[in-house]
């Protein structure tokens, strides 16, 4: 748990040393945007990214994850955690990971998530570029990022690495670090403070005020119909969300019709079949049949239903949903602001 400094020249070799000793996943360029991928060399790493298509939760909770293989009478688990350094996680995604950690640990602990989570060292990094739809400096500001093992900040001439855990400390031996000066610690603090207040979108209401008003708006169906009018029920707002954690499980058979695999896939509550169930005698029921009730459900989940458990909203302000929504109706800032303004 120390503050260390490394020069810009020594940083590349440090990343390469990590890559040589373990799997390192970090932000890399992908077409016009960025994605977390396994690094082959430090030159792939893009710490100047604004936001990735998918949040880093995919490292522990992959979009499609094989759970068990079966073959006649035998069944064996497929979960094989790999020691990993997850490098370059912005603070809003650290908050997202902390929420999915809590949700997958609560009640019945989900080994399929936790095994890889526990095998991972998270190195957060400061925000060097701000996404056009970001609002992380005005949502859930009372929730502090935690659960990461170290925090890396780019300062003049190099980087400050603030380690938080023994796992974070273990990285120091891989690079040419020295103890940071008080001035360097102060410089990093200023860099991280300077991005706050610079997001292009801003939520002007407190967590509690939003939670109360959104819950109260449940029965205002006309408003929800209007908000959801252009909704495709495509689920993209769910599938890019760092705090969504619903999944579906299905079995598939291999060609031998004897062996096969059980897989879980990310699910999305905006899609039409999500809440469809079969009742007694084969009757069918969809308890969120209309797209506006699914749209409303998402906002209830993100702004109010989980707040007590998580200590704040299940939204970290990354703006991924705003960008992913082709109809551009998913933006939490705009939707919440519309709801809040209807009161007055």
């Amino acid at each position, binding site marked *: 748990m120390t503050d260390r400094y490394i020069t810009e020249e020594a940083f590349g070799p440090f990343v390469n040393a990590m890559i040589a000793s373990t799997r390192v996943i970090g932000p890399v360029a992908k*077409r016009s945007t960025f994605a977390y991928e396994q690094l082959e060399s430090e030159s792939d790493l893009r710490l100047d990214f604004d936001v990735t298509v998918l949040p880093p939760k995919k490292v522990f909770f992959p979009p*499609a994850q094989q759970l068990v293989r079966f073959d006649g009478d035998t069944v064996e688990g497929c979960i094989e955690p790999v020691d990993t350094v997850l490098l370059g996680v912005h603070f809003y995604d650290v908050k997202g990971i902390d929420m999915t950690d809590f949700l997958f640990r609560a009640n019945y602990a989900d080994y399929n998530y936790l095994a890889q989570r526990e095998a991972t060292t998270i190195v957060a990094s400061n925000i060097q570029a701000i996404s056009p739809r970001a609002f992380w400096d005005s949502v859930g500001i009372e929730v502090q990022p935690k659960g990461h093992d170290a925090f890396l900040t780019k300062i003049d001439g190099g980087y400050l690495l603030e380690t938080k855990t023994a796992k974070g400390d273990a990285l120091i031996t891989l690079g040419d670090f020295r103890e940071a000066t008080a001035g360097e610690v102060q410089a990093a603090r200023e860099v991280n403070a300077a991005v706050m207040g610079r997001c292009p979108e801003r939520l002007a209401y407190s967590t509690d005020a939003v939670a109360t008003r959104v819950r109260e708006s449940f029965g205002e169906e006309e408003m929800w119909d209007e908000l959801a009018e252009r909704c*495709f029920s*495509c689920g*993209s707002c769910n599938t890019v969300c760092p705090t969504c954690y619903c999944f579906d499980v*299905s079995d598939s*058979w291999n*060609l031998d*019709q004897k062996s096969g695999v059980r897989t879980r896939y990310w699910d*999305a509550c905006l899609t039409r079949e999500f809440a469809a169930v079969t009742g007694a005698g084969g009757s069918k029921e969809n308890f969120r049949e209309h797209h506006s009730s699914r749209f409303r459900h998402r906002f209830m989940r993100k702004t109010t239903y989980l707040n007590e458990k998580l200590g704040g909203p299940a939204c970290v302000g990354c703006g991924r949903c705003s960008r992913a929504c082709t109809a551009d109706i998913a933006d939490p800032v705009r939707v919440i602001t519309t709801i809040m303004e209807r009161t007055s």
Partner: protein
Amino acid sequence: MGKPKLAFFDFTGCEGCQIEFTNLGEEAILALLEHVDIVEFREAMTETTTERIDIALVEGSFTREKDRERLQSIRKRSRIVIAYGACACTGGINALRNHQDDYHECVYGADARMPHLQSGPALPISAAIKVDYYAHGCPASKDELVRILSALLHNDTPLIPSYPVCVECKRNETVCRFDEGDYCMGMVARAGCGAPCPALGIPCEACRGFVDEPNLRSLETVLMERAGFSQERAIGKSRMFTANLRS
């Protein structure tokens, strides 16, 4: 009990879905033949059958009244009928003709009046017979067909997605076509293909048809606002594979 009997039948279409099945390759097909007997398959064998069939894979759209009788005969002797590929499921690309009247001259020129070219609107086979399951796509996905057949061999209900292609693009972390200044119809297109086209930088043309309850008004708006389409083009675009599913 012997192995279930499987037969392929073709109507109006290019028979590319049958060919796609052969792309499974020798090893996979031989493995599958341990569990089913293929008794009719025009693209791969000469034998035909008039016997009872367990699973009929019907390819192509229903475009001539005289096809009705043949479809009914297949239905009558088949335990399960699967509409195999876009033409059988929705009418497919053939159904584009349903909205035009000059296509004979455009396509065939001087031969436009040849008698064998006279046919009615291109319809899904469900316009003539009851269909149990749909293997969507142009061509139908060979892997999905194997999944459907495997489920049926285990007396299970095949899982055929009704969510849109966007779900699969996100699972693949494909960069959205709209973010690249392109258009796409993945928001209303039925998934199950694994979204290979957008992953290769090609927009989704909804070859698997629409999801249930597609928001077509929103599709038109998005194609106009975000991809710069004219209204006419926005409407026409989504007809390519789904002409029978919209006005």
